C-alpha cells in the first residue's frame, strides 16, 4: 500500500467518523424540525408590543397572566378579529374596547358567570358603582391573577377598608386552601404518570369551585361552616388518593424484588460462566 493510499484511507476514515454525531442520529426522515409548531401571535400583540407606554404595557403584563397561561388572548375579552390588522379593532367584528369601571364585572362575567353571581351577591358587588371594588381591584387587569388566597392581602384590601375582617376570613380558609393545593398536586402527579384520576379531578374541581364561591363572600360565619363541609369532602378524595398511593407502593416493592432477583441471577450466571473459562 502506498503512502498516498494510506493517507486517503485515513482521511476518509476521519471524515466519516467525525461525522458520527450527525450520522448515528441522522437515521431517518424523522429528522425533526427545530421550530416546534407554536401558536402564531395575534395582530393585536404584534402591533401593541411595538407601541410605547400604556398602549404597549398590557402585552407584557398579559404574558405573565393566568389568561396567557390558558391561551386566553386579547380578542377573547376585547373582541375584534385578531387575524386581520385593519379589522382587529372594528366594532363590526365584535371589538368592545376597554370597559368602564361599573361594566367590569359584566365584562369578565361573560366567561365567569358563577363568579359574577357570587360577586354581585356579596357586599363587594352591592357596592358596585358606589366606590366598591371590581374584578380588576383584586385580580388586576391584563396581568390577571389566578384566584387564590394570596389575593386577600393587606395591600389590596386596605385600598378600601381595614384588613381585620379579611384577615379572619383568610385564616378560616387557609387550611382548606392548603388541602386543596396538596390534593391538586397529587392528582396532577398521577395524571402525569398516566393514572386515570379524571373522576377525582372532577370531584376536586367541583369542591374547589364551591370553595372559590367563598372567596367573594364576606360573611365570616358562613365561610367557617362551608369550609368545614368542604374539608370533609376533600377528605374523601384524599382517602381515594391514599388507596392509589398504596397500589403504587406495592408496585415499587414488587419492582424492587424483581430487579434484585435479576441482579442476583446475573451474578450467579457470571460465576457459573467463570467455572467454564
Amino acid at each position, binding site marked *: 500500500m502506498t503512502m498516498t493510499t494510506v493517507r486517503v484511507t485515513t482521511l476518509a476514515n476521519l471524515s466519516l467518523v467525525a461525522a458520527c*454525531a450527525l450520522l448515528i442520529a441522522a437515521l431517518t426522515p424523522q429528522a425533526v424540525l427545530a421550530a416546534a409548531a407554536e401558536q402564531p401571535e395575534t395582530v393585536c400583540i404584534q402591533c401593541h408590543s411595538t407601541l410605547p407606554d400604556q398602549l404597549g404595557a398590557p402585552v407584557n403584563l398579559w404574558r405573565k397572566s393566568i389568561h396567557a397561561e390558558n391561551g386566553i388572548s386579547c380578542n377573547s375579552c376585547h373582541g375584534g378579529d385578531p387575524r386581520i390588522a385593519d379589522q382587529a379593532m372594528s366594532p363590526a367584528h365584535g371589538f368592545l374596547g376597554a370597559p368602564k369601571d361599573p361594566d367590569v364585572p359584566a365584562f369578565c362575567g361573560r366567561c365567569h358567570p358563577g363568579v359574577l353571581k357570587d360577586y354581585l351577591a356579596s357586599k363587594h358587588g352591592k357596592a358596585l358603582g358606589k366606590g366598591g371594588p371590581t374584578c380588576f381591584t383584586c385580580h388586576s387587569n391584563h396581568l390577571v391573577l389566578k384566584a387564590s388566597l394570596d389575593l386577600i392581602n393587606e395591600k389590596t384590601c386596605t385600598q378600601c377598608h381595614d384588613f381585620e375582617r379579611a384577615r379572619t376570613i383568610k385564616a378560616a380558609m387557609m387550611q382548606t386552601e392548603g388541602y386543596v393545593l396538596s390534593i391538586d398536586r397529587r392528582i396532577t402527579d398521577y395524571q402525569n404518570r398516566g393514572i386515570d384520576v379524571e373522576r377525582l379531578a372532577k370531584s376536586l374541581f367541583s369542591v374547589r369551585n364551591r370553595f372559590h364561591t367563598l372567596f367573594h363572600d364576606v360573611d365570616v360565619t358562613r365561610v367557617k361552616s362551608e369550609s368545614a363541609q368542604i374539608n370533609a369532602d376533600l377528605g374523601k378524595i384524599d382517602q381515594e388518593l391514599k388507596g392509589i398511593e398504596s397500589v403504587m407502593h406495592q408496585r415499587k416493592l414488587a419492582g424492587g424484588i424483581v430487579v434484585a432477583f435479576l441482579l442476583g441471577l446475573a451474578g450467579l450466571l457470571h460465576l457459573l460462566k467463570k467455572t467454564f473459562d
Partner: protein
Amino acid sequence: MTLFKRLYDWIDLRIGASEIVKKELTGYLLPRNINEWYSLGSVLLVIFALQVATGMLLMIYYIPDADKAFKSVTFIMNEVPFGWLIRLCHAVGSNLMIAVLLLHMLSTLIMNSYKSPRELNWVTGFILLTLAQGISLTGYLAPWSQLSFWATTVATNSASAIPVVGPYLVEFLRGGKLVGPATLGRFFAVHVAVLPVVIAAFIGFHLFLLKRTGVSTPPFGSIETDKRWKPESYSYQHHPGGIPFFPNYALQDATSITIYFAIFFAVVYFAPNLIFTPDAFVPANAFKTPPHIKPEWYFLANYQTLKIFPNELIGLTIQAVAMTLLALLPFLDRSPERHPLKRPLFLAGTIAGILVWLGLTIWGHYS
C-alpha cells in the same frame, strides 16, 4: 433413564437433534478472546421478541381510531390487569432497543468488525437501526396524546423541506393536509403489519450473514485465531481452539440478557417518566399546541442540527450525507488494521463524533 432423556432420544432418532446440538451449540466455536460486547446481538433478539409479544397483547385492547385511541390506552393503563406493566414494557422497550442497537453498532465500530468480509453485516445492521427508529416513530402516534400528535406533526412536516416533492410527501405520510385520523390509520398499519415483518426479515438476513462469515475476532487480547481475510474465494472464519458457544458463551448471553432485564425493569417500575412527559397523558388536541415539543432522545441531535442551520434543506442534506457515509463506511474504509489504538486518527475521530452527538443531544434537550 429420565423422562427428559427418553424424550430427547425420541426426537434425536427422528431429526438428528444431537448433530444439530454439536454443530450449532457445543461444537460451534468462538474466538478465545471474545468479549461481552458480542452478546448485545442476543440481547437485541430478546428485546425484539418482547416488543412483539407486548405489542400483540396491547392490540387486544388498543383501538386505532382517533376518537377512541387515547381512551383505549387509558383503559389499558388503568383497568386491564397488568395492562400498565405491558404498556410500560412496550414503551420502555422501544427506547432501550434503540439504546442497545446504538451500543451494538458502536462496539462494531470500535472493534472495526464492519470490515471485509462483513460489509453486508454492517449495512443490514444499519438498516435495522433505521427500521427500529421507524417503528418507534410510527408507534409514537398510537396513544393519540398531545405529545404523539404534535411530535408527529413536526416530524412529518420535516419532509416538506425536500424540494419539489416535499409537500406531496408530507400529504402522503399524513394521509391528508394535517395529522388526523388517516395518519393514525396508516401509521398503525405500518407499525404492526409492515415494519415488524421487514425487521424480522432483516434480522434473519443479518443472522444468515453471521452464519456464513463466521464470528469476527476481536482486535484486543490474544489474537491467535485471527486470520486476514483474502478476497479470492469464499471462506468461513473458523476459530480452532476457541470456546464453545454452549455452555460458555451462552452463559455470557444469559448474563447480559439478565443485566438488561434488571435495567429494563428498574426503568419500568421506578422511572417510567424518563420517557413520558406530562403531554403524553393528555388527549390530542389539534387546536392547542403544547409550548415545548421535543422529539424522542435519539432524535434530539437531528432536531438540534436542524436548528443550527438557517435553512431546513441544508440541515436535512447534511444529515442525509452523514447517514449515507455511515452506511457505506465498510466500503470507504479499506485499511486492514483493526486495532483502534493502532489507528489514532480513527479513534480520535470516533470519540469526537460521539462527543459531538452527545453535545447536540444535550443541547437539543435544553434548547
